């Protein structure tokens, strides 16, 4: 029986978030969420040879939103862009030992923010096609409209 709605791992990432901050002049930038709903995330990435060499985030939101942002940056750093795009919402949730169901919404945002940053980079580099993305698909990822809102 779990009495604390958050796992130890979530609490650790909330208390000691990794990669908090801003990258001046990022290669890719993603911003998802809506403060009206209580969360907003920003991801900044630096890319070299198709690898994410640096990543930073800023989050306005609940404990779960902050923890998952931190967790996503750890999963993403050092990986190549293809892998970065494959990091799923479920993967993040699993890594965090499963946030409570009502918090799935905030933890989903973190993977979305990462994808938005990567796709922003691809758009700037004009390489969408290479990654099998249409401009419409890319637009949806960079400016997602969350159906829950």
């Amino acid at each position, binding site marked *: 029986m779990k009495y604390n709605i958050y796992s130890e791992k979530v609490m650790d990432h909330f208390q000691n978030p990794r990669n908090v901050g801003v990258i001046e002049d990022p290669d890719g930038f993603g911003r998802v969420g809506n403060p*009206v*709903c*209580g969360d907003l995330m920003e991801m900044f990435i630096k890319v070299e040879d198709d690898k994410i060499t640096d990543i930073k985030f800023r989050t306005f939101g609940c404990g779960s939103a902050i923890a998952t942002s931190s967790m996503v940056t750890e999963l993403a750093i050092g990986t190549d862009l293809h892998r970065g795009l494959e990091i799923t919402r479920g993967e993040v949730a699993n890594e965090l030992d499963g946030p409570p169901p009502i*918090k799935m919404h905030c933890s989903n945002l973190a993977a979305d923010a990462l994808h938005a940053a990567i796709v922003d980079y691809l758009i700037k580099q004009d390489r969408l096609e290479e990654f099998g993305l249409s401009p419409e698909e890319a637009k949806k990822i960079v400016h997602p409209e969350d159906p829950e809102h």
Partner: protein
Amino acid sequence: MDKEKGVYLDYQAGAGVDPRVLDVMLPYMTESFGNPTSMHHWSWEAKKALENARRAVADLLGSQDWERILFTSSATESNNLALKGTARRLKKKGMHIVTSNIEHWSVHTPLKALQKEGFEVTQVEVDEQGLVDPGDVESAIRDDTIVISIMMANNEIGAIQPLEKIAHLAHERNALFHTDATAALGRMGLDVEKMGIDLLSLSSNQIYGPRGVGALYVKKGIRLEPVLHGGGQEFGMRSGTENIPGIVGLGKAAWIMAMEGEEERRMLGAMSDNLIERILSTIPGASLNGPKDPRLPGNVNVRFSYVEGEALVLGLDSYGIATSSGSACSSKTLEPSHVLLAIGLPHEIAHGSLQLSFGRWTTQGHMEKLMSALPKVVERLQKMSPLAPPEWLKEMYGG
């Protein structure tokens, strides 16, 4: 209360039972367990205990009429009984009820249920301080208005409502006046007769009595349609074998509060006034939710620009400080507090509220612990918030 567990600043959510209350309750579980309805001598002690508890609660409310205190299982039940009991009884006279938009769910939801039975409900909107304007109540009253229900003080933002004026308006138009006094009980002086209150709901735990016990004051001459039907206990208005140990506990809690309340209110008021002042003057982006005055002593509800409330609660919890928030993430519905929305806060700001409520065992030491942790928690969250403009952060925190 329990020092090992850290600092508890969430009294509005629940309070410990005063050990003096527990002491008088215990014998009614193991020794004097008679049922007051019985005829034999075991019932006498139970009857006497019931009567004493009624007298103590009546005394705390400023009423002479101890026979008008009905015991229930909770303030929620009291609110249900007051609203459904009067509405159903008076429906031939009228089907209209007036209330406010910052009531507790235990008033709001029974009224919704009554709407399904055909009653009409008008919600008067509070101002940005969380106060009901009696003028708005006056314009909401109709010829077929039977009950007006406005809480005595709001549990979240501590706003104390101008009840006397509203009760007067109700009586002028021949309607009953009910108030949910759960949050206010023990935190302000009460005189139901002078205030013109017809029905008043209260909870035992609010004054350090046990949970699972509440009461409803029903002014002489008012009859209610029961919600719980059965053996006709509580003057035929609330059936069910009396929870004597719990009722004895409530009685003792009321007695202690009547004796010590004034001093306690002074202490809590001084602490919360001082804390509000300190938070507003030392923490960047802090503002107060609800009125500075008239406000319940011991209630502090503040918000901080650019941060979310649940993160504040979690951050403070890691310092061993228990608080609560009206943010969406702290609720089961993912909607921010309806009270904060009612005072006109936009959603994104309502998410950032932090509620601190003090009680009998709150000390100045707790305030110091809070004030050593809170600025750090707020700073950390503001610095990682994409909503905080960099110039603002620089101005507030330097480099």
